[in-house]
């Protein structure tokens, strides 16, 4: 089969099994768009801004486990995509971004819409390619998918100069079934000796804890993790990225850990003697003050990326491998071992944990006459029966969604954890909805974040992706305001928004349904009404208590056992319960 470069790109995507491309046309990709026009197998979703394309592809990837695919033009199209690429990179999301480039002969001449995309994205991609020869195009695309989806996943950029897609130049096409890259051989199974050592340590632990992260979700190992935890009877805490990897309603789950984690999770981490970190990377929002991180613990760390191990926290037993096979190997050894976890030790450990749980760190004022954001999330959980895909933007609302919507299944909590990208939620929700049109998709957002990619409301209409937008509107950049309250003596520098649009009218202008809710008793009926409108995007503008803060909190530079908790009157306290 002889194809031109543009057809090769489209045919390669088809052969790769790609369902959707999220993109935006422009000069350097016109040949490609012409090839897209002439087929129906790969569906193109026209976003309204290239950042939206990357987030939508990212949401699609997080929900499905399949790589998200993006197509943008050169220059500004490419640079607009960079935020979304960096977002995917920080959270290890598989993504292939095809960017147009000016024709090869003019590269380097500051041509119209020229930017060094390979150079710009180098620090925020797993790998990138500049295609120089049309005969290598199919193989390069295959390599891009291979690198993006294997090992520790991540985004890969393929920069394609316009002449490479010239319709007049046809070459033989064959999409390789398999590619190998001599310098890239990610580990799969773990080292047996290390696993043995880890199992021995686990079985002698007195105060153990399982600390698991997004790697469990990326590695499709939720089932194994759950079995592992149940076999050992150990408490489990998840990172922000790991929520859903272990069922949040399970009695062994002690909640999220870290800056806005639960009191019990952070205290258990601090007091533990053995930690097994599974697909988690000891992020600074998790560890708090490094010098005082888990002072009594010996740490086992399973990660597919050796560079993640002992990067910030030194570990005793590193295990490099994919989480799923390593957990399977461990489970087998545990079952075969004559030693069992000490029942007595675990009983007293759980007793201690239950005492921490009794502090009820997540309580808030339920009698308030103002709408409490936590209440909205709890109601969202009930109305959606805990089964919705929930995307979020970044800020207070993100933390409340993470804290008050217990996720029992992986891939249902979709947020920008590492980069913390405002504007992520809405396009991501569209990507999820396209992947799962029969599932409920809610975007929990705030009045600041939603305005960063609000133009994608138009995309949701065009491609019939009806999502529910839960806008926790407090007229503040709430998380910024909270930090200013805590550490800058309430000098609210530019965290106040005094020209907020009428979101109801805005939603209507985009062809959607808008609803404003300003009383607590209206929240539940409004949510029910919104979710009953199956084929409509509904924008719920919910006016919440403007001064509400996210608790509990480990303030910057403090340790796990030095949490700030809410006091009964709803204000914060620095009292240490430790």
């Amino acid at each position, binding site marked *: 089969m002889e194809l031109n470069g543009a057809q090769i790109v489209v045919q390669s995507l088809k052969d790769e099994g790609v369902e959707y491309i999220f993109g935006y046309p422009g000069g350097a990709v016109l040949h490609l768009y012409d090839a897209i026009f002439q087929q129906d197998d790969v569906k193109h979703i026209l976003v309204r801004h290239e950042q939206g394309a990357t987030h939508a592809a990212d949401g699609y990837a997080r929900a499905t486990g399949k790589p998200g695919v993006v197509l943008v033009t050169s220059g500004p199209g490419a640079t607009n995509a960079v935020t979304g690429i960096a977002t995917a990179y920080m959270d290890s999301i598989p993504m292939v971004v095809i960017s147009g480039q000016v024709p090869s002969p003019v590269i380097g001449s500051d041509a119209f819409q020229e930017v060094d995309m*390979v*150079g710009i994205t*180098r*620090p925020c991609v*797993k*790998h990138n390619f*500049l295609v120089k020869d049309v005969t290598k195009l199919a193989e390069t695309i295959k390599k891009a998918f291979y*690198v993006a989806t294997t090992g520790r996943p991540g985004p890969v950029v393929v920069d394609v100069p316009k002449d490479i897609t010239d319709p007049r130049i046809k070459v033989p096409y064959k999409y390789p079934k398999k590619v190998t*890259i*001599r*310098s*890239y051989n990610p580990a799969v199974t773990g080292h047996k000796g290390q696993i043995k050592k880890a199992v021995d340590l686990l079985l002698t632990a007195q105060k153990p804890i399982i600390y698991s992260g997004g790697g469990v979700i990326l590695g499709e190992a939720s089932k194994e993790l759950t079995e592992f935890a149940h076999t050992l009877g150990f408490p489990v805490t998840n990172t922000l990225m790991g929520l859903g990897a272990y069922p949040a309603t399970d009695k062994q789950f002690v909640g999220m850990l870290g800056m806005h984690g639960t009191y019990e999770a952070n205290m258990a981490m601090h007091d533990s003697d053995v930690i097994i970190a599974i697909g988690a990377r000891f992020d600074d929002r998790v560890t708090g003050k490094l010098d005082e991180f888990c002072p009594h613990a010996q740490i086992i760390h399973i990660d597919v*990326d*050796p*560079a993640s191990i*002992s*990067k910030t926290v*030194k570990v005793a037993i590193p295990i490099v491998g994919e989480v799923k096979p390593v957990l399977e190997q461990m489970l087998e050894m545990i079952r075969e071992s004559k030693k069992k976890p000490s029942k007595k030790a675990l009983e007293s450990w759980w007793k201690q944990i239950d005492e921490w749980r009794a502090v009820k760190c997540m309580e808030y004022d339920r009698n308030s006459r103002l709408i409490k954001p936590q209440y909205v999330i709890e109601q969202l959980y009930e109305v959606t029966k805990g089964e919705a895909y929930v995307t979020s933007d970044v800020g207070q609302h993100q933390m409340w969604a993470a804290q008050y919507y217990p996720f029992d299944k992986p891939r249902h909590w979709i947020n920008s954890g590492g980069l913390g990208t405002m504007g992520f939620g809405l396009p991501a929700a569209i990507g999820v909805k396209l992947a799962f049109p029969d599932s409920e998709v809610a975007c929990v957002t705030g009045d600041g974040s939603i305005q960063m990619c609000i133009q994608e409301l138009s995309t949701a209409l065009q491609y019939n992706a009806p999502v529910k937008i839960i806008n926790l509107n407090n007229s503040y950049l709430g998380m910024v305001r909270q930090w200013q309250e805590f550490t800058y003596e309430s000098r609210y520098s530019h965290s106040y928004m005094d020209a907020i649009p009428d979101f109801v009218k805005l939603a209507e202008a985009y062809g959607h349904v808008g609803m404003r809710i300003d009383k607590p008793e209206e929240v539940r009926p409004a949510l029910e009404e919104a979710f009953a409108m199956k084929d409509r995007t509904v924008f719920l503008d919910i006016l919440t208590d403007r001064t509400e803060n996210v608790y509990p909190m480990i303030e910057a530079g403090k340790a796990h056992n030095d949490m700030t908790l809410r006091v009964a009157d709803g204000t914060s306290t620095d009292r240490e319960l430790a």
Partner: protein
Amino acid sequence: MRHIISILIENESGALSRVAGLFSARGYNIESLTVAPTEDASLSRMTLVTRGSDDIIEQITKQLNKLIDVVKLIDLAESDHIERELMMVKIKTSEHTREEIRGIAAIFRGKIIDVTPTTYVVEMTGPSSKLDAFIAAIDSDTIIEVVRSGPTGISRGEKGLHL
């Protein structure tokens, strides 16, 4: 501690910038960097001298290995190795200093490879410390220019860095 990391890397455009970019992005220091093709046209060999604690060096080697273009690497400082650097020094000469400079160069096994009525160019190879010592032995006011290649190295014995 000082480490010499020897890297086999794909001979492709952009490979060097990936390594250099990694060091600047993560705040690692590069004391010197040399790169040249190898007997296998698809590979380049890079020698990178850096300094850092054991933890930092461990991260550097892991992060380098993570780059798709990096095929293989070793930290030469971990075992017995030979290190060489090439230097050329242009020195201002006068009738009564020429002999002295020739003498010092001879002691350091340097060669005079260019002569003009007023200058010498001395070529010298050796470990970096030897080159430093030569520079220190010459009156600094007479040095016009110093060009150094940066160290490169190879391990002793049978083992080698290859595919």
